[in-house]
């Protein structure tokens, strides 16, 4: 089932601040979408609006083209997995999973035997054999999470919403469940929306990533799109390691504040600016400047450099490709950062500097 969010607005009932600020997003049928962003970005709020757990003050939510704004949460037939599982502590695992079926009105309620077989089927799907008679407090975190998922799937929902489902699990279990969830999604083909603050988790699981900040979607696309053409410095910093090098644009050149960094051509207007660059894109240029780079450790093709400039005690530490035949200590070197992007006030001042040519470093 596809989900369409059209200019959704939700303001905090406490202080009137916008929590979700004019968000529009389309989630394709059968896709796995991740809402990613730092805490307080409005990801969970958006998910709760889709589920009908929180009201919204503007815009509309449609599922499969039909508006659902006026439907209560219980009428939407959506599966929701809560961050802290929210299992019913006084019910056995089987009763937890069968709850959604057992509360249906008499004429649509499956028989006891049908519910039991559905529960058994789901326990099997979740790889939880033989825990049906146990109580939630007797299970491990990973097991509880899968019971919560089974409970959400029991009623055959048209949409599955996951609110930071791995937040409370240890890293190893987290990785296992992640892979297993991806398999499950491929098997069931159920449209799924996942909320997480972990970009790696989002990259591994989702086809589409919607990056949120301050209640807005900053950029939506595949993990590769976000990484390769980030819409803003925030997206770039969120999607991978970034080194920020302050400097200025002057007469069509970016000049770093640090010496021994080669200036490169840009089309931006003059003024203060930062270069944001992935460390692996930094190039070390031996015999082209006055700085010293000290190779602290290597990892395959990559090495961690401590870069110290000739003037003052300014330094950078970054991990990048080790040039062929490089000595552990490179003297008289400079840095080429022309593969980076130039940012000013949280926005790019120009598109990618593809054809920038390195010019000799200007001593300041």
């Amino acid at each position, binding site marked *: 089932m596809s989900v369409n969010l059209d200019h959704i607005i939700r303001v905090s009932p406490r202080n009137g601040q916008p929590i979700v600020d004019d968000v529009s997003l389309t989630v394709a049928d059968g896709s796995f979408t991740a809402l990613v962003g730092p805490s307080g970005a409005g990801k969970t709020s958006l998910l709760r609006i889709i*589920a*009908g*757990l929180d009201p919204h003050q503007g815009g509309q939510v449609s599922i499969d083209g039909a508006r659902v704004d006026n439907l*209560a*949460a*219980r*009428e*939407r*037939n*959506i*599966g*929701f997995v*809560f*961050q*802290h599982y*929210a*299992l*019913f*502590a*006084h*019910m*056995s695992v089987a009763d937890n999973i069968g*709850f*959604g079926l057992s*509360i*249906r009105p008499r004429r649509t309620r499956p028989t006891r035997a049908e519910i039991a077989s559905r529960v058994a089927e789901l326990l099997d799907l979740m790889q939880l054999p033989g825990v049906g008679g146990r*109580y939630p*407090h007797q299970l491990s975190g990973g097991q509880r999470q899968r019971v*919560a998922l089974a*409970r*959400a799937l*029991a*009623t055959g929902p048209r949409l599955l919403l996951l609110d930071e489902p791995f937040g409370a699990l240890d890293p190893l279990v987290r990785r296992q469940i992640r892979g297993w969830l991806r398999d499950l999604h491929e098997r069931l083909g159920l449209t799924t929306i996942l909320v997480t603050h972990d970009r790696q988790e989002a990259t591994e699981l989702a086809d589409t990533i919607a990056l949120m900040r301050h209640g807005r979607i900053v950029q939506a696309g595949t993990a590769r799109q976000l990484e390769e053409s980030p819409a803003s410095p925030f997206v770039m910093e969120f999607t991978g390691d970034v080194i920020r090098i302050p400097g200025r644009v002057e007469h069509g050149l970016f000049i770093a504040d640090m010496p021994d960094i080669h200036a490169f051509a840009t089309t931006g207007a003059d003024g203060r600016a930062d270069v944001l660059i992935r460390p692996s894109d930094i190039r070390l240029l031996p015999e082209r400047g006055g700085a010293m780079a000290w190779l602290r450790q290597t990892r395959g093709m990559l090495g961690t450099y401590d870069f110290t400039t000739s003037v003052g005690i300014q330094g950078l530490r970054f991990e990048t490709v080790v040039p062929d035949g490089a000595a552990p200590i490179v003297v008289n070197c400079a840095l080429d950062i022309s593969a980076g992007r130039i940012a000013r006030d949280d926005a790019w001042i120009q598109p990618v500097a593809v054809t920038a040519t390195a010019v000799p470093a200007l001593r300041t």
Partner: protein
Amino acid sequence: MTALRLLSGRFAWPRRRDALPGFGIGLGLTLLWLGVLVILPLTALMVRPWSGGIHDGARAVASAMRDGRMLAALRVSFCSALIAALADLVPGLLLAWALVRSDIPGRRVIDMLVELPFALPTAVVGITMATLYAANGWIGAPLARMGLRVAYTQTGIVIALMFIGLPFVVRTVAPVLRNLPRDVEEAAEVLGASRAQVVGRVILPALYPALVTAFGMAFARGIGEYGSVIFIAGNQPFHTEIAPLLIIIRLQEYDTRGATLIGVVLVVLSLLSLAAISVLRRCLSHAQA
């Protein structure tokens, strides 16, 4: 020397350090206190009827068992306490709910007032209630016109006990309700449960152990309650005379043994009731460690 080390090795305290400083001494003092203040008097009470020899005691017990007035008083006490404790559960739960979940104005004041029955001298409560519910009182008069008599009947006793027992229910249920995670309710809602189903199948079952505890406390208090009851009860032998009052009456008649026997029966029955409640609570909460 070796033997000493062996001994100290065998009887050494567990190595694990407890967070509470001076736990050993504290526990010892507590047990001593419990012994002197609770177990010793109770034992004395139990032993007292047999002070004149086994035969003498047995005869006294046998005659007491045929004492209709005593049995009637015990029945009045237990039945009233039972009904009052059960009847307290509904308003107690509602009050706890209102205090925890709603933002009604004056919530804090109500929260404070809940404890008032603990603080008031029970005689004040009893006299006030008797005045209110008397046939010419503020509440009693309209009720009397409808043909309902409250003061000087068992209904009056139950109402007095309800007043005394209500704080137990509110104070026991409110914290459990407050700690009940909201997402559990939301989970039920998303799964298609109506408000009634959420309350009936998710919230109430989670509160059952607390409700049983609350019932037990209100019930136990109700059995022993004296001051607030005697003014509204009318104290007619065989009808509205409660067991604690009969103890006083027996004492005033210099029938110490009779008074003691009622005390013994009260203690035994109370212990049995509390044990039953404890078992019930454990059954209900086995799923929630």
